[in-house]
């Protein structure tokens, strides 16, 4: 690793670790930011690198949310009784039970969505282009409606996740716990995605994006790589969902868990805003988007979705390649692209 990179990364890590103390009042927003970055970064693996625009990653996010909460409750108490009539019977987790539960829950929330992604991917990753996008869009919507009918996880009543243990009196502890959990997931996801960026795997994903038939003709088993790529995304989406479920404290089937209309669209939007197909693009996109949303939305009460619509239009028209793509076009030399001035001029003259 180069020295400058080292400075950058250690700086970011220190900032990340210090953030909840520096901006104590913003812990929840910071946790959201970490989760949004994870979602955008992993969506970018499909949408950006592989060229498969998935609207279905919200499925894994919601699945992770329900799984974490269910495991956390189910490990110690009968789940059906917990959710029956919306938590009529109240059980209380001890401190140890709470953390054991959420730990195991998050593990399950990572593995099962990854397996589900494998199974669904096997079935539908043969679809290409719009067909794949529409199919995945349906997945998220269907999951929401199905979850809204399953009694054991609360159905339409919603699922109240276990409250943070009352024995921990510090009211800041909950915020810190969720922030650091999400920060760890963010760091893990970043390391993993960065590793992928330096590997042959990324080149294969790019080959699939640029010309899938040719890639196949070259002897690459594209299906295998497509499925693995989706499983990686699902793994981290599940973790992100699990954290969010605990943080929000209340899971609703269509509005919180399988929230395709918001989270599902946001993750795509953030990746495109920053520049899909780049390592830093989704991160910058998510950060900007989150600040835009938190900072501006309260000033335009009731009109924020109109503003969001305008933002989408602006991005699509003026920054079709995202901020990173725009910068790259403007300052190609900063991205390590060498431009031969003579050659460029001669091309212009030819026209």
């Amino acid at each position, binding site marked *: 690793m*180069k020295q*400058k*990179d080292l400075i*950058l990364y250690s*700086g*970011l890590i220190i*900032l990340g670790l210090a953030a909840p103390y*520096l*901006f*104590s*009042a*913003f*812990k*929840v*927003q910071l946790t*959201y930011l970490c989760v949004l970055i994870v979602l955008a970064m992993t969506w970018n693996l499909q949408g950006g690198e592989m060229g498969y625009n998935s609207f279905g990653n919200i499925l894994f996010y919601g699945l992770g949310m329900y799984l974490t909460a269910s495991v956390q409750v189910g490990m110690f108490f009968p789940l059906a009784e917990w959710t029956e*009539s*919306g938590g*009529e019977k*109240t059980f209380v987790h001890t401190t140890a039970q709470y953390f054991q539960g959420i730990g195991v829950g998050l593990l399950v929330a990572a593995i099962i969505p990854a397996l589900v992604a494998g199974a669904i991917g096997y079935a539908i990753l043969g679809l290409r282009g719009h067909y794949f996008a529409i199919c995945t869009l349906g997945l998220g919507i269907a999951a929401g*409606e199905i979850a*809204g*009918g399953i009694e054991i996880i609360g*159905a*339409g*009543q*919603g699922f*109240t996740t276990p*409250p*943070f243990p009352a024995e921990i009196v510090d*009211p800041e502890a*909950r915020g810190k716990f969720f922030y650091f959990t999400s920060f760890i997931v963010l760091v893990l996801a970043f390391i993993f995605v960065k590793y992928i960026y330096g590997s042959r795997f990324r080149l294969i994903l790019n080959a699939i994006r640029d010309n899938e038939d040719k890639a196949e003709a070259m002897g690459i088993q594209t299906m295998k790589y497509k499925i693995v790529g989706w499983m990686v995304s699902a793994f981290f989406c599940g973790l992100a969902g699990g954290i*969010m479920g605990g*943080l*929000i*404290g*209340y899971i*609703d*089937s*269509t*509005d*919180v868990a399988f*929230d395709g209309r*918001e989270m599902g669209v946001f993750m795509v939007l953030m990746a495109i805003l920053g520049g899909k197909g780049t390592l*830093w693009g989704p991160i*910058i996109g998510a*950060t900007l988007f989150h*600040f835009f949303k938190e900072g501006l*939305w*309260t000033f335009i*009460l*009731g009109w*924020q*979705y109109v503003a969001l619509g305008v933002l989408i239009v602006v991005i699509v028209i003026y920054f079709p390649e995202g901020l*990173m793509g725009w*910068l790259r076009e403007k*300052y190609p030399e*900063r*991205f*390590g692209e060498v431009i031969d001035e003579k050659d460029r001029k001669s091309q212009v003259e030819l026209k």
Partner: protein
Amino acid sequence: MNKIAKLFITFISAVTLALASITSSFAKVEDGMIVLGSAISLTGKYSSNGVHTQNGYNMAVDRINKMGGVKVGGKSYKFEIIYYDDESNPKRAAQLAERLIKQDGVHYMLGPYSSGLTKAIAPVTEKYKIPMVEANGASRSLFTKGYKYLFAVLSPANQYLEVAIDLAVEKNGGKPVKIAQAFEQDAFSQDVRLGILDAAKRTGSKIIIDDKLPKELNDMAATLAKVKATKPDVLVVSGHTKGALTAIRQISEMKVDVPMLAMTHCDAAKLSKQHGKKSEYALCASQWHKNLSYKDKFFGSGKKYDKDFKKEFGYAPPYQSAESSAALLVFKDAFERADSFDRDKVRDALKATEMQTFYGNIKFGPGGQNVAKPMILFQVRCKGDTCENKVVAPTKWASDKFFHPIPKWSERG
């Protein structure tokens, strides 16, 4: 890469500076103001009811401020509310509650609209020990969790339509009835359903159709087709404003004949105005009606509230507005009795609330629900082309007799 890294670092530090400069939060009581916080649905599926709620809050704030404000420690304070739009989304509501408390320094909260959103906010207010008086979260499960800082001025959701089943049985000569029901898949409507299940069990009635309706509700033709085929004695529908509107629209389009139709949210949907004669005979559960004889010194009677509200906002107040206004009366009363801004003292004062408002009597049970006020049922009745809601139950308040059964569509003009 290095250049991008530099750019990124610049960006991050800019953001850090910006954030650090706005971290300073303002206190809850300042310059003679008591600042309350509320996340309200201004957009999304609950937007119409969210606005009813907000109008109710604003009306009460204006009135209380004009009539001398809140007197604490010999000084007069005025109410002020910080609103955020929760987009009818529980996730957003929970986040905004956190923001109101942590960043805006709000120490007292008013509830959002709907049970689902209240369920999402209550754990947050509970965590920070922030007293919340809510007027629009009726789900029974809110009051069984042992929340200490949650107070609801309304009756729990399971009580909404239980009385309607009793009425149906009574009209059937005391014999059990056949019930068809369709409920939206959300916390509130599912609780109304639980109430019906209890009532059915109690009266030995049979539920022959038990459908779920989606949240973005605009079609229930499948349920109505079944109703046409099975001929139940009573049809129960609950799905907030959209549920009420959809039900009336499609029942009249499909000419579904059913002897009794019981619903929720008729007045919030302005049913008698929007659908006129088509909505006649619909039986509706309501927390409040202007003809009830409750009184207080701020709004006078229900009729006066109705008049003042119409003047201010241009439409008749649905019960969502009335109960929201009542929430502020409760807060004012509690502040004055506590004579302090200590949160726990205010909380204890809220707990001991026992008062009458134009909206009804208010006294909180152990779970925080209002136990002093019964639900009422009204029926839409028309004279010529103008339709009105007439109270038919309980008998103490009834202004009209309950009309049963609903005439067949072929006989209706």
